[in-house]
């Protein structure tokens, strides 16, 4: 009886997984074996290993890595500071709030800010640096991506810092550790789980960013995400697009494996 009931409760979840996770995955895999003419072939996979796609893959991974690194460098100290503040819930809300705004809106806002006649350049002109090309560069791409991902990095790190028993820090000080040594030997290792899940939450989406590459990077940065979009919408080569998607999925699986069970396990 109870088992039957549990099975009934499982139905919505099973439907969701089946329709929106497994079926699309199977379709992506299926399409990846067909050429643009509709012939079954492995040619797409061979094409992926040509310099043009490999370069894209390397650039995607490189940018995703940079974005994750800078996000972490900003998010960890911020999360640490947050745990020391008085109105933590309010500050946390202020950090989460921007994630409720559509990414496209935020991207357009940055176009306004970073454009040739935007606020950033006006300030640069004012202090005598002169107007620069900020928009449509690799820098602007990383900058805006980091901005977008920061909340997703802060939250898991903040949670693990919150859970960190303050007596561990006291004990480290008591045993002679300076503030730096305490951080290296106690605080950071004990919040590593949060860092790992934060890195996953940033690296994986960063790998497949495509809207920003067009709007902010002006197609100067071509990632695998951009390539997939091009193939599906412009060249109509669904097979090749699906093949790239298969490699993206593989990359994500590898990242998750490398990061351990960080995203799932909390001690």
């Amino acid at each position, binding site marked *: 009886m109870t088992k039957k009931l549990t099975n009934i409760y499982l139905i919505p979840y099973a439907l969701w997984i089946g329709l929106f996770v497994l079926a699309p995955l199977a379709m992506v895999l299926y399409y990846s074996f067909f050429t643009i003419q509709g012939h079954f072939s492995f040619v797409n996979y061979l094409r992926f290993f040509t310099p043009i796609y490999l370069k894209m893959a390397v650039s995607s991974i490189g940018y995703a890595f940079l974005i994750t690194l800078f996000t972490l460098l900003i998010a960890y100290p911020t999360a640490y500071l947050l745990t020391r503040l008085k109105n933590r819930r309010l500050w946390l809300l202020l950090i989460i709030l921007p994630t409720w705004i559509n990414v496209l809106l935020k991207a357009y806002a940055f176009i306004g800010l970073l454009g040739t006649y935007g606020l950033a350049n006006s300030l640069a002109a004012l202090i005598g640096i002169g107007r620069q090309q900020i928009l449509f560069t690799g820098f602007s791409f990383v900058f805006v991506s980091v901005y977008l991902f920061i909340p997703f990095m802060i939250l898991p790190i903040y949670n693990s810092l919150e859970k960190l*028993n303050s*007596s*561990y820090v*006291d*004990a*480290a*000080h*008591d*045993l*002679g*550790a*300076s503030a730096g*040594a305490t951080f290296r*030997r*106690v605080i950071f*290792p*004990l919040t590593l789980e949060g860092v790992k899940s934060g890195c996953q939450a940033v690296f994986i989406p960063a790998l497949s960013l495509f809207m920003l590459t067009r709007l902010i990077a002006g197609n100067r940065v071509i990632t695998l995400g951009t390539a997939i979009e091009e193939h599906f919408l412009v060249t109509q080569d669904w097979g090749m697009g699906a093949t790239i998607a298969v490699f993206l999925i593989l990359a994500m699986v590898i990242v998750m494996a490398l990061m351990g069970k960080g995203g799932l396990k909390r*001690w």
Partner: protein
Amino acid sequence: MAEKMMIQFDHVTKKFDGETILRDISFDIERGKFYTLLGPSGCGKTTILRLIAGFLEPTEGTLTFDGQLVNKIPPNKRQVNTVFQDYALFPHLNVFENVAFGLRINKLASKEIAPRVKEALHFVNLDGYQNREISDLSGGQKQRVAIARAIVNRPQVLLLDEPLSALDLKLRTAMQFELRQLQRRLGITFIFVTHDQEEALAMSDEIFVLNQGKIEQSGSPRSIYDEPINRFVADFIGESNIIPGKMPQDRVVSFAGKTFNCVDQGFNKNESVEVVIRPEDLELKQRGEGLLQVRVESQLFRGVHYEIIGKDEAGNSWMIHSTKSAKINDEIGLYFEPEAIHIMRHGESEEDFDRRLESYEGADHD
């Protein structure tokens, strides 16, 4: 004497957000003794410990180690180690690395670290536990690792913040004995915080009884138990019968409508006082015998003894601990020696109290 003095609190006051936790506290800690800070929760005992450890700074007053002002010295620069109430063992390190933590911080060579860790674990009877994970240890074992982690650094002073409170009764009693042994073997100062008076009496050389941010009384377990300074201490340390009385003259006290001989001196004529008699100092006698007649109201079997509550003719309640049982509603006699009576003056300061006791006890008192 001055050489043995190592930690000195001089008129220390500590406030948090305008609330006073410690009020103008002064005391000395000597080298190589076992001290206990005893008091109910919120009395400020843990605050004193955190001041010594360096986690807190006095709001007023000075704290000196060996004559050196340490008010602003951070905990990592003090020759003091703490055993925390929740042990605070690092969960990402195994037993060996937990114990080695302080040595690694001090950049000791690995060659020296291993024997020191082994020795510390041996001291707490945990030989062969080096490679265990913290999560695999029992409460008592964690407790020992926490002690080993502290003593491996060879501190001058070991601070223990209610370290036994999480253990069950049997283990707690065993650990009390072990801690006392350990302190003797190491010969360093232990400062132990607890709210458990039995623990304090069993282990300490000297007890500080704290209440509401003030030291009510300090002294050896015997002197505090036998001669509490006031109602709070008499009540907090053990069970007490506290009865209002008068001192017609020195060595004579009247209470419950009768007059008794006692050994206390230094009072004004007919001064009203409080009389303390411990329940175990009251002896059960037949009706009509003894010094006082009481009617038994209730009786509890406590294992080691019976706890009998009776009422005398003047209406005072008396608690009696006796291995003999009584019958409820029976009239019984109570007998006690003059030495069993302890007289407390209202509002007497600790200094005056000590001076008065010394004036007449002389050689027969420790």
